[in-house]
């Protein structure tokens, strides 16, 4: 009951801030709806298991949300452009292994730069395959997922690479108060990605070819270049997630992020970015990442077998898309809203 009482509050905020145009209000309200779900869930879990709000646990949730969220920022840009990248797990593994390998001989900053450069390189491979070899994004990146995983396994000979530098571990897992440092990085990246998508020429190009590629080409936009670039930016985001994941696990190995692409895509789609492309909501992605982190944490606290998380993530993803499909079908009937 207490849980339900929290729902009206965000809606009230929506009404106050609504600038009058019906659609903007509706959009804002639908975002707030997700926030409401998040608040209800957090309160409900907090009542069922008071340890949820305990010191270590909330940091844990924020950390988990940030790892998924950092990668999800890049994925939101891709999905807004009507693209997709399933090679997240491969990029994270290779960049994290790079950190583990070069760290003994370089500074922390140097290692992070190497990891990010690898993310850029692997993103470039994906981008070139999709743009110039003209392979459908999800299938090209499914191929490169296994390619990158294979490279990661070959590089490590299938072993675990330990991160021996305690300074690196401390730097990546540091907290300010109860908020992990990585969460702040995540918020900064999310804001940067938002500005990139909605306030720059590049972002406008991405949204343009996301909603209608042929029209964007005919309008003379640099579609091919922007397509490659958006994969590169996404690769950078995935590598950044790998940087913190390596510090968190204090090790790196080939299958450290197996199946991570599901969590990332689910966070983006549940956040409200439609798979058909053309628009993306970074705020939704942040909320979606938090939602899945709280959900996973709740299942852990309640002692549910971890296998249920596979079932749950998949179900939530497919339900979110089915609802989105119904909604957009309705919008089409109403006309060019």
């Amino acid at each position, binding site marked *: 009951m207490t849980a339900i009482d929290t729902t009206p509050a965000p809606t009230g905020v929506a009404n106050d801030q609504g600038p009058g145009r019906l659609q903007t209000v509706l959009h804002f309200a639908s975002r707030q709806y997700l926030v409401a779900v998040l608040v209800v869930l957090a309160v409900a879990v907090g009542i069922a298991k008071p340890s949820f709000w305990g010191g270590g646990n909330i940091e844990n949730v924020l950390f988990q949300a940030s790892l998924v969220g950092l990668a999800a920022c890049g994925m939101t840009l891709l999905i807004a452009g009507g693209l997709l990248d399933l090679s997240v797990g491969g990029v994270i593994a290779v960049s994290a292994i790079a950190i583990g390998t070069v760290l003994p001989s370089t500074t922390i900053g140097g290692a992070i730069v190497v990891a990010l450069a690898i993310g850029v390189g692997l993103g470039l491979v994906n981008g070139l395959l999709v743009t110039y070899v003209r392979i459908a994004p999800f299938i090209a990146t499914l191929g490169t997922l296994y*390619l990158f995983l294979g490279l990661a396994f070959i590089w490590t*000979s299938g072993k675990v690479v330990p991160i021996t530098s305690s300074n690196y571990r401390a730097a990546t897992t540091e907290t300010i108060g109860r908020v992990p440092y990585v969460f702040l990085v995540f918020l900064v990246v999310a804001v940067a990605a938002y500005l990139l998508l909605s306030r720059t020429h590049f972002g406008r190009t991405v949204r343009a070819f996301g909603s209608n590629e042929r029209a964007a080409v005919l309008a003379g936009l640099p579609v091919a270049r922007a397509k490659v670039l958006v994969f590169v930016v996404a690769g950078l985001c995935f590598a950044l997630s790998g940087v913190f994941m390596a510090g968190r696990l204090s090790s790196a190995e080939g299958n450290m992020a197996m199946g991570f692409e*599901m969590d990332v895509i689910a966070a983006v*789609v549940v956040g409200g970015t439609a798979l058909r492309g053309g628009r993306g909501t970074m705020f939704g992605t942040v909320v979606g990442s938090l939602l899945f982190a709280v959900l996973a944490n709740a299942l852990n606290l309640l002692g549910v*077998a971890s296998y249920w998380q*596979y079932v749950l*993530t*998949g179900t939530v993803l497919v339900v979110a898309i089915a609802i989105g499909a119904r909604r957009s079908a309705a919008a089409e009937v109403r006309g060019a809203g």
Partner: protein
Amino acid sequence: MTETVTTLTAEELVAAERDRSAERARRADQRRRLLQNSGVLVPFLIVLVVGVAVVPNFVSSSNVTNMLVNAAILAIVGYGMTLVIAVRGIDLSVGSAQALAACVAASVVNSAGPFVGALVGILVGAGLGAVNGLLVTQARVPGFIATLSTMSVFRGLVLLFTGGAPIMIASAGFKDVATSSLLGVPTPFVIAVLAGGGMWFALERMRFGKHVVAVGGSPEAAVDTGIGVNRVLLRAYLIAGASAGVGGVLLASQLGVVNGSISTGLELQAIAIVVLGGTSMAGGRGNIVGTFVAALLLAMINSGLNLLNVPSFYQYVALGLLLIFALSIDGAQRAAVRRMLEGRHS
């Protein structure tokens, strides 16, 4: 006088143009067939020759049997995938569906006997395929994302079903199916050839096959022609699930012991052999024979790498490269056909 002459010439011009475009279409088709067949046959022959020449024990009878059984299981899953890709869909959940079918089949074999077990395994596969089909047709979720989700869901279910522990199959009769042979040919291979023949017949000689081609070629046009597009899609996904089930039963029989994490990454192998076999990702064309040959090719590559003691992770790389190669061929083939149809100057 002059008027009739010009009309004649105009008609002649039209006729000549029609002939030329027919000729272009014919040559485009020839070129497509050439590319389509060379896409799988050239690598097949190269790998075969290299395998026989370089790899030790490649043609030993036990290795040949092993390759044929592996190829058979892969090919059967590939047939279903061929159908789904031909209707412009994709099924990423085949690996998880096969694992669930194999584990359920193994557990039922232990409690109710081999025949019931095999039947239940196939039915489980068909049921999972129907779930995918309903998500695509009724919930209007795009195929790749629906099956990406069910890939995760089915994997979770099989891990819950087994509780993470392996299931040993007690029935010797069930395990013999994969190792037995008919007239010197391993039984699974015979099953794969028969299933392939059936699928080929359904795709090339039956109304269902024409509907598949129509839906894959242009779903909008298929709707306008009065084809029950949703029914065709649902059947395609159902058959893909059922063939994953058959593959799962054979796999359980081959392994004798199954667990929740078998068949991970099968979707990539299945897609790779289908595309390599000449089924276009653009839909509208299914090539069952190509899928069958490509399954043999992939089984040879895997077996060759194993015999050469190449670490298993190189197989990931080989598979990734093979898939990208196949997709590039597919893209080049489509571009070639487009160029031929449009002529040089356009």
